[in-house]
């Protein structure tokens, strides 16, 4: 299959890691996968192309408006690849009615200049097949395709068993690390930090790596955009280290420098049941994931074993228990990794896309 990914890749943000996984998985399975556009010197491992001949499926991976190619590439791809060989993966829930949750949103004109109807028209212009990374899209004309997936080869330290993992689990610089920008996550991060505080002396310091954790950015204040709040006093009191973001290829290594790695989804994605790159990527790290996610979502995506990784009401008690019985938690991690390999491998994702390509993706089919 010749697969063209149409999206804007940036080494620091969004789905660049997943895109790399598709390229690698495609190579292993004999698929020809490339990103539409000119080569990007910052991403040497990604093949870029502007050649459109023979493309079996053009997958428009949409998050922000800039994921639509600029001209003249936009016209070439829309004119060059028939509609039935195009589909849209709506990673940020744009193809829904307008949703407001806490401070989060799927459309906000003052933020990016686009109203909800523009997103809808633009996606429908590309294809009849619109997929979202959730098991249960809200709209009947949207298909489910999780897009992000699991690559067993990316596990930083693939342990033989839980005992080995637990024995190796030590000597970490941080008690917990969260890698991700301060975008609609502050409330959840704050709850995590406040719950973490009683155990901090035993677990270790927290590291937040991402943009805008140290201070609310001036542009957000100027535009009246909420959900990028922070509390420098709280961070100082808890001794939290706030760092700028890291490149996609440094995320797993950084998470592995901490005992625990919380998985946090922004309110919009929790509401929509969306998975993200970090949903899976956190399990590559040599760290115990703390799943700050709804239990039914955890069971559905990660499998029953992962419920062990969901803290109860007391995060501190949960962390203390993990410190005292690490093998129990590592066993859950290894079982979850196994579940992810069985159910969410990129090989399976590619099979789904292959089926869509064979069936004429643009005809509105869903996997």
């Amino acid at each position: 299959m010749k697969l063209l990914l149409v999206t804007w890749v940036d080494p620091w943000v969004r789905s660049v890691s997943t895109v790399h996984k598709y390229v690698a998985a495609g190579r292993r399975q004999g698929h020809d996968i490339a990103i539409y556009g000119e080569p990007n010197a910052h991403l040497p491992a990604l093949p870029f192309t502007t050649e459109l001949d023979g493309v079996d499926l053009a997958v428009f991976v949409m998050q922000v408006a800039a994921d639509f190619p600029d001209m003249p590439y936009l016209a070439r791809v829309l004119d060059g690849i028939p509609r039935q060989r195009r589909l849209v993966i709506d990673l940020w829930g744009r193809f829904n009615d307008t949703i407001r949750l806490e401070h989060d949103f799927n459309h906000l004109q003052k933020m990016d200049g686009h109203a909800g109807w523009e997103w809808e028209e633009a996606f429908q212009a590309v294809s009849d097949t619109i997929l979202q990374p959730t098991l249960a899209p809200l709209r009947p004309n949207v298909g489910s395709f999780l897009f992000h997936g699991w690559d067993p080869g990316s596990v930083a330290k693939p342990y033989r068993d839980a005992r080995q993992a637990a024995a190796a689990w030590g000597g970490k610089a941080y008690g917990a690390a969260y890698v991700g920008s301060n975008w609609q996550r502050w409330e959840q991060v704050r709850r995590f930090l406040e719950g973490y505080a009683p155990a901090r002396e035993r677990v270790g310091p927290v590291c937040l790596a991402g943009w805008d954790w140290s201070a609310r950015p001036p542009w957000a204040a100027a535009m009246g955009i909420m959900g990028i709040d922070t509390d420098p006093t709280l961070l100082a009191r808890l001794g939290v280290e706030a760092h700028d973001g890291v490149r996609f290829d440094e995320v797993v290594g950084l998470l592995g420098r901490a005992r625990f790695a919380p998985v946090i989804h922004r309110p919009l994605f929790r509401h929509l049941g969306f998975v993200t790159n970090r949903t899976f990527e956190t399990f590559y790290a040599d760290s115990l994931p703390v799943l700050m996610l709804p239990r039914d979502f955890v069971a559905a995506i990660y499998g029953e074993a992962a419920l062990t990784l969901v803290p109860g009401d007391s995060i501190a008690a949960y962390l203390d228990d993990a410190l005292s019985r690490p093998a129990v938690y590592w066993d859950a991690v290894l079982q979850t990794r196994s579940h992810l390999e069985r159910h969410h491998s990129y090989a399976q994702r590619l099979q789904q896309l292959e089926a869509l390509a064979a069936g004429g993706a643009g005809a509105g089919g869903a996997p």
Partner: protein
Amino acid sequence: MKVLLVMKHRGDAGNTHAVANYMRLAPRFGHSVAIFGAPIWYVPELQFSTDIRSFDRVVYIYESELYRIERMNEAVILAKFPRQHRLIMDTDGMYNPVVVVDGYDFNHASEAERARWIAHLDALGGRIMQTTMAPPLDPRVQAMAFYGYNPALQMPPSASPAKQFDILHVGHNWWRWREVARDLLPAFEEIRAEVGRIGFIGLWWDAPPPEGPTAGPEEAFRSDPERFRRLNIETPRAVLYHDVIHTMSTARINIMTQRPVLRRLKHLTLKYFEIFCADTIPLLMLDADHAEAVYGPAGRELSLPGAVARKLLDALRRPDHYRAVVEDVRRHLVANFSYDRRVEELFAVLQD
């Protein structure tokens, strides 16, 4: 047929007035025209729409800027209109080789910039039309006048405003200065004592755009306000498109200049026709052959190059003679450049 125009729209510049004529006349032929975008409060007569899917054809009108709409909107337009339903109107000769006139005005600053334009327009596809009187340089391009003369807009002397100026130039200072400084100002100096008020109405005669180099090459906006001051030349504010003819009518003589590269390429502009709607004597910075090609034989007498001072004084002294010449030109324009014909031509091309 519903036609959507994608263009940079400003009330005080560009092709807005021409488009207003298409909007006005299209219903007479069973068609309608709207500009893509949200309405502008100060030009309520212009029709705008963002309902892309309700249109049948799209016309991209380009000037010297590779105007872009948002990518998401562009995607909808591209998906809605197949290439054969897209028409490109190249009003500033951008779909050409690099053309530089006397090391001054140019259509492209570099081959790289030209390549960017060509790639963009080729990707849009459809048909490319240039608003030129000459055979287009590129065989893939067709000529189309696009601009026209609307006799209904002619200002009758009885309704004309009082004459405030003897000489007026209405238009922005965009690649005009060299010609103004070389040909017009020396003539004004020669006859200044015999002439009343002189005005240059438009943008950038006093200063370049405040946005700086992003607005365009510095040379394009060059001016010499001190020289204007010495000649007692006034520079009133620019006017909206619907006030152009009225404003021109406040002067006995209006001078028409054209940026050099467009004159070289024999491009028509809106000003070619607007100026003959005004109650004024148009005098043209076009050579006599060029003037005749557009305006008919009478146009030769309105040609200024080589005789600016003499012609200005002559027109001020013999207005009746020149008014008769202007009437001849108007008859020629009605016969050859009416907007009815333009509208028919455009829709015929779009229908193909």
